[in-house]
């Protein structure tokens, strides 16, 4: 397994929104999905997931409802709201632009200056 990357500050919210956009998930499921998509290359503090979920819910980007898990247990499921979808969209755009700019800067060769 590759060495895990520490999560950049502020990106956890974006990842949660993305994970939740693929269908309702409980907290643990969100964690699993992020790990699955990232092929375990990101290190996520499990404890820090929930404050982020509560924050996103408080901001109205996700909603929660109690439901039943795969193994027949009560679990709280999170789902993206319309506002959350828009948010994810802008965040994604911003992130791509930022990544381009940063990559451009880092890729600069001495003769290009």
């Amino acid at each position, binding site marked *: 397994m590759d060495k895990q990357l520490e999560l950049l500050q502020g990106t956890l919210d974006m990842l949660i929104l993305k994970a939740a956009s693929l269908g309702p998930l*409980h*907290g*643990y499921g969100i964690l699993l999905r992020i790990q699955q998509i990232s092929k375990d290359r990101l290190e996520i503090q499990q*404890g820090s997931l*929930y*404050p982020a979920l509560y924050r996103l819910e*408080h901001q109205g980007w996700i909603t929660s409802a109690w439901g039943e898990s795969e*193994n027949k*247990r009560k*679990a709280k499921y999170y789902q993206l709201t319309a506002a959350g979808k828009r948010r994810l969209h802008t965040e994604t755009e911003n992130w791509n632009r930022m990544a381009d700019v940063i990559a451009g800067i880092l890729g600069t060769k001495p003769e290009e200056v």
Partner: protein
Amino acid sequence: MRLWSQIQSWMRAMAARTRMESDMDAELRFHIEAYAEDLERQGVAHEEAMRRAHIEFGGVERAKEECREARGVSFLETLLQDLRYGVRTLAKSPGFTTIAVLTLALGIGANTAIFNVVNATLLQPLPIREGSRLVVIWISNMGHGWSRIGPAGQDYLDWKEQSKSFDDLFMFEHGTGTVTAPGEPEQVAGLRVTTNFGDFFGIKPVLGRTFRLEEGAGRHNYAVLGYGYWQRKFAGDTTVVGRGMTLNGEQYTIIGVLPADFAALFPADLVVPFDREWIKRADSDLGVFGRLKPGGTLKLASGEMSVIAGRIANARPTRKGFGVVLVPLQDVRVEYLRPALLVLLGAVGFVLLISCANVGNLMLARSIARQREVSIRIALGAGRLRLIRQFLTESTILALLGGGVGALLALWSTHLLAILVPSRIPVPNAADKVTLPGIHMSGKAFALTIVVSLLTGIIFGLIPALQSLHCNVNETLKEGGRGFVSSLRGNSTRATLVIVESALAFVLVIGAGLMIKSFWHLLQANPGFRPDHLLTLRIKLPADAKDSQYREPRKQADAFQRFLSSVEGLPGIQSAAFTEIVPLSQDDMDMGYFVVKENPPLAPGEHLAADYRDITANYFATMGIPLIKGRIFSEQDNLDRPHVVVIDETLARRFFPNEDPIGKHLQVPDTTRPAREIVGVVGGVRDTGFDQQPRPTIYFPSLQSPDQTMSLVVRTSMPRGAILPAIKNAIWSVDKNQPVFDVKSMDEVIAGNVSAQRLAFLLLGVFAFLALALAAIGIYGVTSYLVSERTHEIGVRMALGAQPLDVSRLVLSHGAKLVGIGVFAGAVAALALTRVLTNLLFGVSASDPWTFVGVGLLLIVVAVVASYIPARRAMRVDPMVALRYE
């Protein structure tokens, strides 16, 4: 309703909160368990799986706290949290909490109690319509030192006719009357009034009516009952109007009953009307009130009345040299107590400041001890504003607890004060007394207590809260919780608080010291007679009645003589006499002019004046007034013999400076009789008050100038309860219908005379003691903190050879130095502030150097004693232990 909806919202918030918490618990548990199950599926044993799940999840509590914060916490929840935390921390240090609550309770309780008195006396409006526009009108003659005397009926008539500043003028006369029917004979407090009485005060009678204006034109024997008398005598009988009663031997008809609260203005049993002829006859000592016109000022009215006084002096030569004095009725009623109460109000304010400083100091010491806790909380992400809120919540809990206990203290001490504050207070120089309304805990005072508690809570809570803002987290944690970057600053704040405290305490103790010294002087002051073992009571002969046996003056003199010999015969009575006026009683006034017959005539308009006193022969012996020269009266000095007088030494010194007054003759103006020969000179008596100088006095033998009302003074070593029935029986054996009233011991008379000083003296004493005790606690706190903080340094010093004595000197001098600065600051403040005491002081200057030096020393001693315990602890520091501990 509002309360209910508030409770509902509280309950909703509480319910939401508990559901939220359990949801959060369930969610996190699900996560951990689901993860553990996944691990188990990979072959990890259950126990181990759970353990690893927990570890990888991280701090559950911290996650929860962050969740709560992320969700946004309501104000109410924070408040509840702070309250719970505050109560818990306070409960954890019961010693601190008890001291802080008690300190505050003393400060707040004392303030509430004094406010109750001030509220009842100074702030309560008069129980009459537009009482603020009423003024009392006196005449004055500064040439004779008469600042306020009651005018004559003619003055009233002239003023009423000529003045335009007043809506109306009202005249009254206090007196006593003998009621012989219905019921047993008794002496009642009476008030004779002009017939505009009801309208002037806006009285709404409980029953019947008051007088009609036109009833003043002729004689009407109508009586209005005071509420208290109606209850007492007639048991509140509502059919009393129209009934008859016998007053001073004449038949009167009851026409109405006054409302209860009117007694606060005039504590009279019966009110009867003046008629026009009577007004003209009434020649002195009347009371006149004026109601200023709307928009009129006291100054304008005074100006107008002065002009009128000048006109009157031209028309009536007897009024030459007289002026008019106008004082608002509200002020007159409280001017006797006001200086004492204002001083006390200031003093309790000081006590409250000191207790605030003390609690602030305690909080500060605690906040320094709690720096590690604060640092950890800051390190864990607690906001500083949040911390300040926490501190404020804590101090507000303390303050409210203090306020609650203080309110209880106030409730209890208000009862005490109600006893201590005189219920009837003399109006200086006016031969009048005012009844104060009862003093009790008022809603206003209770509201004030709560406001003061909250304010003090915020003020002394802010000090440590702001201190904590300077807290440097890293330093504190690095130093193992001991050091605090701002500890120096904390120390200087605490030192300042102690200095302020001792300065305030100094001022208070100076005030108390001056009052104690002054009161001592008052009690030591020689009133000119021996006040111990004297009993006094008054007798008024019913001489006004048509068929009275006492209508002739000679019969009146005889009657008193017979009463006297009957009383003198009783066992246990050393001596007895009658006098027109008992010294210091302020019951009445009698003064007048005289001319020395042997001297050249005075310039027109110039007068010599003196107090007049009619007495029986044995008066000087009974009172213990020394004879200086000549002889005293004997029973031979009656109407058949040459008229004689005895003068006091004040008059002798002033008007016969270089000659022997014996054998000289005094002419008094009101009779055509021959001049009276001076046969003796006696010692001066402080007749009007302990703090007044004796005034020139002329004594007349009562057999030669009889009175209708006289006071019996009896010197006896027997207790009052044993001798009084015997005295009454002795009087009734002469005339079984003769009431006696105003029974008082001389001690009671004197107590009434110095009641304001006594009040100020006692309460200032209590407050000063409180202040001293609080200051001592403050000094002790600061010094012991200093010692514990410098244990290391002390250990080093002792290891290097310092003796325990040196160490204790170090500690003691620190406390003494702070107090020394405080005393200096306090002395400067006291010099400025004690001037307000001047009115209450007697025989002591407001800047009495002995008091200042004494109190300064006292405070230093208190500081040394308070520092002694920590100093001893410092002396016992074992250098080895101290250094190893560090």
